[in-house]
Structure formats: C-alpha cells, structure tokens
C-alpha cells in the first residue's frame, strides 16, 4: 500500500490533488461534490470584495489541446460567498479560499474573511491574465507579490499561497518575492495569455479578446516553471497546468511540487478526474517500489 498523503507547509492533504480555482468553485455544492469525488483539497473561485459579473460571453472556448477563457473574475462577492463556503466545508477536505483585489488592503480584507469562514489556507490570485487592474497586472511585479504576501501574512494565521503568473520573463523572481513576503507556498501556474480569432467572422472569439490558455497545451510550461522555482526557492510549490492523468501529475511532483491542482482536466475527465489521477499515481508508485508519494517530490532534480 502506497501512502498518498502529502503536505504543503502546515497544510496536510490526504492526497496530492486539489481542485484549481475557477473550476466549479463558485458554489458550495459543487465544491462539496468535487471533494466527495476524491480531491485532496478544493480551492474556491477567486472571490473579490464586491459581486462582479465578469466579461460577457463568449468566455470559454475549447481546442483539441486545452481551453481558452476570459471569465473575468465573475464572483458573487465575499459577503454572499459566506454561505457557499459553509456548504463547501461539508466536503470534509481542506477548503482553500482564493481571493483577488486591487491592492494589499483588499487582499487583507478578503483573507481575513476567508479565515473567518474557516478556510484552511488562502490563495492569492496575483496572476489572472485577463482582468484589468487585477491579477497579473499587479502580480507580474515581484515587489507587489512580496508586499501583498507580507500584508496578508501579517493579518491571518492560516497559510498563504500566492498564485503566480507564467507570463513573465522570470517566474523565479516572483516566487522569491513570495518567499520573502513570508508565503507558506506558491501556486504555479495560472493560465497563459492567449487568444483565438475566428477567420470567418474576422473577430477575436472571446468577448474580452484576450484570455488565458489552460489545459494540456500548457503542461510543459507549468512543469518548467515548477522546476525552475524548486531550484532557487525553498518554500513548497503547488503545481498546476494541464494535468489530467497520473503521469502528468508525477511530472509536476518530480519537478518539485508538493501537491498539484487540476482545472481544465475536469473538462474531459469530469469530477472523477481526481480519483483517477490518484489511482494512477498510486499504481506508478507501487510499480516503482515507492512507499509514499513524498519520495518522488523533486526527484527530477537529482540527476
């Protein structure tokens, strides 16, 4: 029997898979369903201070190799979300509250609320690639990552996980800034800035024109980011981007991730993707003579 338990800093997980933010994470019942489907933890949709309708449709389109989305941080606002959070907790796995804001003050307010609601950790969305004045428009600068992390750390006692953008020259500098700000772990990566044009209409398809690419296509980018961060920064990493199988997850774990998140993988795999990925990881570890998933974390660095 292989032990799938892992931990991200102080956060203990029964297995290394988590639901990524923005996927089925807007409502308590769906978060609960994902928890019951086998995820080791669930991350909420990114929540802001006020309700927000996000960008108009089309907001999501699919390719053979992934998704392009510009949902635009639609969310019901932190007050309304309290009830959803309470429902989500019934899933009996850690619920991580993802938040976004215009600056440190908003992040602090939101994080405090999330702690209040009973969040096991708070994820800072410093990386959404398609919302004006938010996400990566703030989080592509190391000094903002450091400052916001530090302020949030100073006001809550739950773990703080800044989520980083790959749309920079050097994601290691962002992870380093997060670490300096006191982050308990970093989450890498958010989606990659991208777009699609429909030749027949001569128009960008997304109403917001530009969105974020996720899914299989970005897996090699995410694995690279995690690998680069692990070499230079010592805090734990949560890997995300294009995971839909156990072998995908193992690439991230071996690159240095202590746990992984799955977002677009829910598209083809449904909520069952979490238990399938866990089963595949387990089988792999068994066949390769490992007793615990922890044994392979960072393993690709020893060669």
């Amino acid at each position, binding site marked *: 029997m292989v032990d799938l338990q892992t931990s991200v800093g102080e956060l203990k997980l029964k297995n290394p898979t988590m639901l990524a933010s923005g996927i089925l994470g807007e*409502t308590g019942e769906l978060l609960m369903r994902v928890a019951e489907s086998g995820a080791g933890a669930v991350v909420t*949709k990114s929540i802001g201070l006020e309700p927000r309708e996000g960008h*108009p*449709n089309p*907001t999501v*389109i*699919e390719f053979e190799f992934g998704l392009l*989305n510009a949902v635009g941080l*639609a969310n019901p606002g932190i007050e309304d979300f309290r009830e959803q959070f309470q429902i989500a907790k019934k899933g009996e796995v850690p619920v991580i509250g993802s938040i976004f804001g215009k600056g440190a003050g908003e992040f602090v307010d939101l994080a405090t609320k999330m702690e209040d609601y009973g969040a096991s950790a708070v994820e800072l969305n410093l990386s959404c690639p398609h919302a004006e004045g938010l996400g990566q428009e703030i989080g592509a600068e190391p000094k903002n990552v450091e400052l916001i992390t530090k302020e949030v750390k100073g006001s809550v006692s739950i773990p703080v996980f800044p989520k980083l953008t790959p749309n920079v020259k050097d994601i290691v500098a962002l992870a380093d800034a997060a670490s300096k700000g006191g982050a308990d772990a970093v989450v890498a990566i958010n989606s990659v800035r991208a777009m699609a044009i*429909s030749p027949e209409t001569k128009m960008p398809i997304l109403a917001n024109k530009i969105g974020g690419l996720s899914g299989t296509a970005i897996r090699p980018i995410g694995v690279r980011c995690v690998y680069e961060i692990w070499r230079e920064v010592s805090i734990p990493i949560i890997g995300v981007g294009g995971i839909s199988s156990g072998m995908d997850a193992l690439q991230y774990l071996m690159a240095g991730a202590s746990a992984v998140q799955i977002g677009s993988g829910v598209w083809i795999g449904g909520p069952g993707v979490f238990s399938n990925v866990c089963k595949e990881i387990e089988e792999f570890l068994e066949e390769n003579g490992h007793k615990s998933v922890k044994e392979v974390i960072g393993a690709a660095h020893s060669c």
Partner: protein
Amino acid sequence: MLVRKIETIVVESHHTKSFYFKGGFHADPGQFVMVWIPGVDEIPMGLSTIGENMGITVHRVGEATEKMHALKEGEKIGIRGPYGKGFDILGRKLLVVAGGTGIASLMPAVETAVEQGRDVQVAIGALTKDELLFAERVRKAGAKIEIATDDGSEGFEGFVSNLAEELLSNENYDQILTCGPEAMMKKVIEHGMNHKIRTQVSLERFMRCGIGVCGSCAFDGLRICRDGPVFDGEEVYGKGDFDTYRRDPSGKRIPLLPDV
C-alpha cells in the same frame, strides 16, 4: 468554434423565430449548443431540429435574442457543441409536455420517438393561440397532439400541466418528457410520481462554458450543462434550487422568477 451561415429563418410567432444552418455534427434529442452572435453574446439554445440541417428556435427576451432576431439569412453565427445529456427515449407510449418555447427542445425527441415506432402524445401549452409553436410539425411527425392555452383561445383552457394530468388519468404512459417553466415541470413531475411514471425534465440556467468547468450553471451539486440539461424528474424534485433559485452571472443565488 464552428462558424455557420444561417441558411433559412422561419418566423414561428410574434416573438419566436427558427434559424437553420448546416450542422456537420451528430446531436442527440435534447442536446443544446452555445450560439455565438458575433460582437454581441454567446447563449445556450436547445436544438429544435437535428440532422443535416440543424435548427434552433429563439424566443426574443433580451439583448442577445433581440440581436439574433435581427440577423438575416446568409449572416454568420458561431456554434459550440452539441453539449449535454439529452433525453433517454424509452418505452412504448410517451407523453411529451411542453410549455412555451419548451417545445423547441422537445421536437427532436418527438420526431425520433415516432420514427422509432413509439406512440407519442404531445401536450403543448401557451399563453394564447398565437404563441403556440410547432403544432403543425407535431402533427406532421405523426404524434397525437393536445393543446392548452391559458386564455382558452385554443384547446384546453388552463395550464398544460393540468392537461397533462387529465391525459395521465385517461391513459397509461411509460415515460414523460417535459420542458418549460419550472413551476409547470414541477407539477408534471408530481403527476408522474402519482402515476408511478418516470419524468425527464430539461432545465435551463445561466451558462458560460457549456462544458462543465466554469460552474456558472450550478443547480445544487449538478451542472446543468454537463450533468443535464435533461435530468430525471425525481433527481431534481428534491433540490433546493428547483423552481426556486437561479444564479446570476456573478454566481449569486437569486429567486427564480415564475416566467423564466
């Protein structure tokens, strides 16, 4: 995203038009597509005709459907899909209960069931005679039809759910398929349960992705777009959101207005 020319537009009533386009994909009765009106919006629409020529039937209710109504033959729309789980067409004798535009999503099931040699009784309801949709098409398909209008301008006077109850009391059916306002469908499920007949209902909620990832169409723990839009009546009957709540584009749970 498929982009298709609108081949034909048919005016069905003062507020409803059908749009036909070359599909090039297979769809099951009860599935829907996301329709992109370039520059305007993308909205979910049940397929009212499936086959080589696909059709959607659009009730004008707001900005996107208004702009859709303004499109001309030859103009282009985008299509994603088909998505979701459609109707299970089972049983020898089927009762199909449609409220308003609901008949649109039911038409392919009616036609398929008749083609498969099943006995199909359709009950269509509308506010008034002029808003009745597809009565002729139901007859042409070879199904029996009964009509209900709220104002009694044609057929049975009253709600189509009452008409359905009458039909259920007079004959034995193996399955009920229904689409329309949730208050109506709730009644139909209840009548079905009383007669120990399975009812399949087609639901609608605000949608973004249509493919089960964004969570916008959450209905309790279900995703209308992927787990549905067709559900077992008994499965949704007990749900807190049924006939009670919907979610707005921010994800906020808000009361479901009676006529939506």
